[in-house]
């Protein structure tokens, strides 16, 4: 009876995961979808705690430990998630993802110890040394898979987290890819040996796999550029999904199986979609060639170039005050400078003067998909003012002033004109169609892709150098003083 109800709980949870994920992929229903999946998860967890019976019909014990764990994890998780700054959210996701991976790996370790104990009992009962005769290979295979994938996901997520909050720098050495490949071969070789060759002493091999997997996770993420971390996190996310599914196999538990595979499949596709939005391939991201070269290539590119003109604060303030329509193009620099609130200020002041102000949002502006939406939403910019790329491109022609705030690659005309450019083919915001373009950045240095931007040298463009927050504050003061 109890088991029957538990089966129903799991069935309901599986369905909420699917429906929740589906709702999450439509803007209007996304929030409800998240809550639905959370409700399903709650049902599955409570069901497990109170109704679970193993194959011999024994329920769970250690309730104190279980509830203590849930409480501690729940409180810390809620606080961390509530306190984190908007711009630090990808880091947070990475951290939580790592926790999931570690959890899967720990489960594998405990279950392996059970197996070893079983072996001990088998020996004590006078059994021969053929440990593997008494154990189901499939079980061991799944334990190993969950262990390897979970450990890689854990270690990789920690590195990604460190990179995103700036504690860890990109490190790569010659032949790193070769070392990585050898490492993964070694891991699977050891696992296969454990499975097939039935060595007398399996325990050290098992822990060797743990260590090697952790090392691989670190080496895997290390050389990839910090700006590519969202893609890496998405990939590691799908890894953790697969590790969770391994647990589903192990306990013949449908909700773990379906939830894990769902995330594994959806996460993989999402990773590919993210790469596509940046017009790159997953391989290209993983090899770290693009993000890695940005720093080096950047300086070289900045050396060349033509002549550009600067604009004074008061001139900028004047053209914007007397414009009919101003379009703001936010980019990574805005996020770094945390200038979203000042930007919203500026918008309100201009609107009060009768200027029509809108934002043009490029899908991959910033460093994570939706970065600009989240950032501007944090500063209470109204949703209706955010134009997607296609809409914005239709409106630039009728725009008087475009104010580019710390964006670079997403307004680089080379993506349209120069087939030799690494970003050629990426759709961009065609700001050069507007009457005047004012670009705010700190220097002539290139952006993420590390390439020169011809936009800055065009006659209609003028530069307003300085940190985005500072420049906007000064601009705001000037505009207000115009009256």
């Amino acid at each position, binding site marked *: 009876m109890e088991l029957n109800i538990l089966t129903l709980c799991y069935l309901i949870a599986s369905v909420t995961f699917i429906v*929740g*994920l589906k709702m*999450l*992929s*439509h*803007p209007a229903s996304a*929030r409800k*979808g*998240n*809550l639905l999946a*959370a409700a399903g*998860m709650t049902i*599955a*967890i409570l069901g*497990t*705690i109170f109704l679970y019976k193993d194959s011999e019909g024994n329920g*769970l*014990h250690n*309730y104190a*430990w279980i509830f203590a*764990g849930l409480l501690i994890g*729940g409180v810390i*998780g*809620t606080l961390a*998630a509530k306190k984190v700054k*908007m711009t630090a*959210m990808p880091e*947070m*996701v990475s951290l939580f*993802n790592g*926790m999931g991976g570690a*959890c899967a790996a*720990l489960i594998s370790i405990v279950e392996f*110890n*059970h197996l070893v104990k079983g072996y001990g009992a088998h020996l004590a009962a006078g059994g021969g040394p053929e440990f593997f005769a008494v154990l189901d290979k499939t079980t061991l295979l799944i334990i190993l898979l969950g262990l390897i994938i979970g450990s890689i996901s854990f270690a990789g997520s920690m590195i990604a987290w460190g990179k995103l909050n700036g504690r860890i720098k990109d490190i790569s050495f010659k032949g790193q890819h070769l070392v990585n490949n050898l490492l993964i071969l070694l891991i699977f070789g050891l696992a296969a040996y454990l499975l097939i060759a039935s060595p007398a002493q399996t325990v050290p091999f098992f822990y060797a796999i743990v260590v090697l997997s952790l090392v691989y996770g670190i080496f895997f993420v290390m050389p990839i550029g910090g700006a590519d971390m969202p893609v890496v996190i998405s990939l590691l*996310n799908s890894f953790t*999904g697969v590790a*969770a599914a391994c*647990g589903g196999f192990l*306990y013949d*538990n*449908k*909700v*773990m*199986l*379906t939830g894990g*595979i*769902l*995330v594994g*499949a*959806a996460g993989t*596709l*999402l990773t590919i*979609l993210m790469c596509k939005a940046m017009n790159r391939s997953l391989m290209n991201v993983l090899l770290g060639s693009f993000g890695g070269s940005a720093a080096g290539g950047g300086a070289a590119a900045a050396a060349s170039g033509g002549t550009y003109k600067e604009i004074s604060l008061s001139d900028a303030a004047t053209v914007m005050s007397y414009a009919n329509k101003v379009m703001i193009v936010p980019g990574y620099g805005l996020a770094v400078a945390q200038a979203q609130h000042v930007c919203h200020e500026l918008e309100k002041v201009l609107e009060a003067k009768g200027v029509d102000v809108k934002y043009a949002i490029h899908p*991959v502006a910033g460093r*994570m*998909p939706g*970065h600009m939406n989240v950032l501007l939403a*944090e500063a209470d910019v109204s*949703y209706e003012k955010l134009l997607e790329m296609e809409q914005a491109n239709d409106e630039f022609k009728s725009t008087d002033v475009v104010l580019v705030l710390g964006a670079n690659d997403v307004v680089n005309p080379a993506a349209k004109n120069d087939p030799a450019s690494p970003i050629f083919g990426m759709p961009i915001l065609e700001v050069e169609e507007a009457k005047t373009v004012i670009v705010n950045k700190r220097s002539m240095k290139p952006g993420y892709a590390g390439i020169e931007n011809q936009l800055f040298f065009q006659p209609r463009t003028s530069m307003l150098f300085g940190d985005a927050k500072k420049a906007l504050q000064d601009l705001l003061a000037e505009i207000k003083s115009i009256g």
Partner: protein
Amino acid sequence: MLEWIQTHQQMIYIVILMIFVGIEVIGRVPSVLHTPLMSGANAIHGVVIIGAIIVMGQAEDGNYLAIILGFLAVVLGTLNVVGGFVVTDRMLEMFKKKK
């Protein structure tokens, strides 16, 4: 191998179908939702917590290794689930239209 497929056929069907569902369900996501979706999916794989609860709940009294590792697994799994859903909700809150 063939025999393995035979004994696990139901599981295999479920896995294959789930892969199709996962891929199809995501198919049409607009790029602004990539990050919340990643975060939501991250919370869902926190279902691994169920494995942790089982491990913890089955740990024999004297087996400190199992108890400690199991406890750690429960804490980490809960972090993943609770933190994941809360952070996703916060992200999505930002997207809601102003009244």
